[in-house]
């Protein structure tokens, strides 16, 4: 066990944890951030995406040792932002969420994309979301929603 210090959703956090613990387990089981979903558990589905210093990581493959001193944002933290509202509204408008299991990861990856590239092409959107699987086959609706938010513009 080691002392692990980092920022979670803009608040400092200090936990005692085994450094090899998956960030996913720390967040879900110990810190009750259940918006972080576990799909495949091997880095193939993106449901466990979280922002680490502004870019998306698969939390299932991240040992907590790797987030020491970093800023982690989950969907619980991101939902309090204007950017979340704009993305979530577009997802609702286009029916881009059905069962919702992939949605936190889709939304965080959408944000990471738009922050870097506010006016992506359709291909760039598909590449940015290529690590996020949706089993309700909602890709077209999701891509349309992302292009719509980008089209509307605004600060990211």
């Amino acid at each position, binding site marked *: 066990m*080691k002392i692990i210090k980092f920022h979670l959703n803009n608040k400092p956090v200090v936990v005692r944890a*085994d*450094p*090899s*613990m*998956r960030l996913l*387990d720390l967040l879900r*089981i110990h810190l009750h951030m259940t918006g972080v979903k*576990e799909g495949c*558990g*091997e*880095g*193939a589905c*993106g449901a466990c*995406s979280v922002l*680490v210093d502004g*870019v*998306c*990581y*698969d939390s*299932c*493959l*991240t*040992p907590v*040792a*790797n987030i*020491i*001193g970093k800023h982690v944002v989950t969907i619980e933290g991101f939902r309090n932002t204007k950017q979340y509202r704009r993305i979530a509204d577009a997802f609702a408008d286009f029916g881009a969420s059905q069962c919702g299991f992939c949605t936190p990861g889709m939304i965080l*990856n959408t944000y*990471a994309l738009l922050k870097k590239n506010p006016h992506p092409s359709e291909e760039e959107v598909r*590449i*940015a979301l*290529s*690590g996020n699987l949706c089993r309700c086959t909602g890709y077209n609706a999701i891509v349309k929603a992302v292009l719509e938010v980008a089209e509307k513009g605004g600060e990211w």
Partner: protein
Amino acid sequence: MVNHHIPSSLKEALKILDAHDCYIMAGGTDLMVVKHQRSGLLPNFDKDVCYISNLKELQYIYEDEKGVHIGAGTKYIDIQENNLVPDLLKQIIDELASPNIRNMATLAGNVANASPAGDSIVGLYLLDAKLELVNVHGSRIVPIEDFIFGVRKIHRHKNELIKEIFIPHHDDLNTYWRKVGSRAAESISKVTFAGGYELDDDKVTDLRMAFGSVSVTVVRDREIEKKYIGLTIDEIHEKADEIVEDMEKYITPITDQRSTKEYRLKVSKNILKDFLLSIE
């Protein structure tokens, strides 16, 4: 009892590696899959772990007159976005894993993992990459093909760490890349091929061919390449089938969950021929 070491400097990391036999954890994208048990359980590490992901000293890219130096802690995303990096390597990274994995994983980790299907390793073989390994006593430079010797087998002494990957300048090398996988993103390759050539008018002054996923390591044979260097473009085109035949002895794929050996062999030969005929 397994201990977890989180050094705060390279020097400290090397002392730890000198004293303990450790798994070296960078981005975690291979090790955390291999050691995963199930939800809520800790990964089952059977020896100590040394975490190097936060060592800033290993995160750099710079060039000198000889080539480009990529620090072992540099993430794929930072390599992909850097202008000093050869196009071939960028092209490989574009098709590698997923955006999240590219944010986390390192090139050196792909090398150390030494999977026959490690895509970036194929590019490193083609570009004559060398590794700098360091320990508490000093450092040594090893060509990548002398470092990897089997499926997940590398010549790393227990107290050594890959410090950087060095890629010599190849300003006139034209490169070619093909990855065959089941889908565009996140696929573990069935076959990969990197080719390279240089021309002086219509004369081929350098020729390189490297395959991944078709043998226990990436395969490249400089003797075969030398046989054809110096020929004209037309002669290379005429001899394309002969070159494919020469390389065939190295294409010894297996049948596994991703593909069959017959498919892999056929596709490998087709890709090699396509590369040779693309030289112009």
